[in-house]
């Protein structure tokens, strides 16, 4: 399962699979976002210079995790915004609210990783097991 970072990638022939673990739902979501950023910008240091609100609602925990990750994929695509720190105030299985701090991608300081096109629904799972949360998903890259 996921290593100390809370996420790990697994092999998929064309794309990238990711397993995520968190002691709470909030931690699961943060680890998933960190995994996404590790793909896009690898080990780049991200300065938390810009703060943005995030508020999402969905009909299931799976859809909420998809919406959360898609939010960052879109922010990056449109404004090259890289999240680096997360303050989640309220997280339930169908909604979350909080703030995300980060900065714009700077080719001089940040690493060009992999463009993530989207979060596929293929073999997508979010589960609660033994008091912690686990998720598995495949990114289209």
């Amino acid at each position, binding site marked *: 399962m996921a290593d100390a970072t809370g996420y790990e*990638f*697994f*092999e*998929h*022939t*064309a*794309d*990238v*699979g990711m397993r995520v673990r968190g002691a709470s739902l909030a931690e699961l979501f943060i680890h998933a976002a960190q995994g996404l950023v590790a793909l*896009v*910008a*690898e080990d780049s240091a991200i300065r938390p210079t810009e703060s943005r609100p995030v508020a999402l609602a969905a009909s299931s925990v799976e*859809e909420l995790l998809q919406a959360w990750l*898609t939010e960052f*994929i*879109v922010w*990056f*695509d*449109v404004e*090259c915004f890289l999240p680096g720190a997360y303050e989640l105030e309220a997280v339930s299985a169908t909604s979350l609210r909080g703030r995300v701090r980060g900065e714009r*991608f700077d*080719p001089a300081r*940040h*690493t*060009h*990783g*992999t*463009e993530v*096109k*989207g*979060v*596929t*629904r*293929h*073999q*997508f799972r979010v589960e609660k097991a033994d008091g912690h949360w686990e998720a598995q998903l*495949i990114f*289209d*890259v």
Partner: protein
Amino acid sequence: MREAWQGPLEKIDDYRWRIPQSYDARMQVPGLIFASEKLLKEIVKDQSLQQVANVAMLPGIVKASLAMPDIHWGYGFPIGGVAATDPDEGGVVSPGGVGFDINCGVRLMRTDLTQEEVQPKLRELIAGLFNTIPCGVGMHGDIRFSQKDAPKVMTRGSHWAVSQGYGTKADLVHTESQGCLEEANPDMVSERAVKRGQSQLGTLGSGNHFLEVQSIDTIFDEGVANALGLSVGQVLVMIHSGSRGFGYQICDDYLDVMERAMQRYGIRVPDRQLACAPVQSDEGRRYLGAIRCAANFAWANRQCLMHLARGVFERIFGKGWEQLGMILIYDVAHNIAKFERYRVNGAEKTVCVHRKGATRAFPPGHPEIPEAYREVGQPVIIPGDMGRNSYLLAGTAEAIEQSFGTVCHGAGRVMSRAQAVREAAGRSIEQELEGQGIIVMGRGRKGIAEEQPSAYKDVNDVVHVVHNAGLARRVARMRPLGAIKG
């Protein structure tokens, strides 16, 4: 996660294999895989054949769930998967059969330059392309369109790009569907998709997208090659990109729409990514209206990329692109769903053909191919990997009978990205390629390692199957001189 195929596989002949419908009671049709025994050894190692069987369960699918020899594990459909559904029989359209990168495709442009003429300036040329064409994550382009112009890009595709000065009308004739699908409906596209697309026209992207300078090393069919003005040693330019964030967002938006539609229409599929709706439903029509916008965006994008490449050649070789003979040979989509007419069960039908990592290949005489190619068949562009070869093929009548006028789209991955990076540890793929005379420039640290030649099947093996199965015939083979990657 790479679970090997345990199901049945019946040999039809040396290039055709069947997954019988009896494998799973939910299959509406059998699976048909075009592959050689050699390629099959790799194919059975991942979950792609299960995905062929899953696609065979889609409502209204006709004839067979098809797989091309470059098949590998995708999401929803396998990459290399083809399926046609009959709208009159409840046939569905599925975003899983098109993918996130709607109208990802390839275009091939000829030049009058020879390899000997390009070789002394090769490094300068590749660097010029690399510095001019935005590639890699976080790189936006200078070609932008306003909110007001967005519907024009979506409905006019390459025609919009040409109207802005990025190319000429002759380019449009040599593009599948003339670079513009009718009945694109901008009202079905989210504001978010438009925002994602606004700074991405004329950008390559990352992953397996590339721009490659190639030279022809073999001509297989002199007649067709002559008709296309091609000979050994001639330099060509190949561009592989798609609809960028614009198309990715449309796919994402409609996966949610389709999941709700399935509940409404009582459709069950074995994989959430195969979420779908009847072609003749409101959701189906909305999705088709939206993906036509994305297809048009992708054609505009490749048109802009080609324009940028022409500018670099002009600068390096000190001549206008027309003088350099930089004429578009053809542009083909390989992730798309379109209506086409075929004989199904003895009757002529309009079906919805999904091509997920598969290329349209129409025969000589087909009304949808340009006048200039009417006698030789549609040019079919098959990129390989950056160390070996790529191919130009021509469509045949047999593909119409066997595969809904479709062939493979490339070599097909054989190695996961992580495995490719591990294989490249302690090596420089750039230097290894340079040792073979191939100059590759990429933005990312891992990108070139992930895309190294050995991560792919040998395109020669893939094309061997397509040619011998009669789906298309070989015209010319290219070898790479240099490439830029994201």
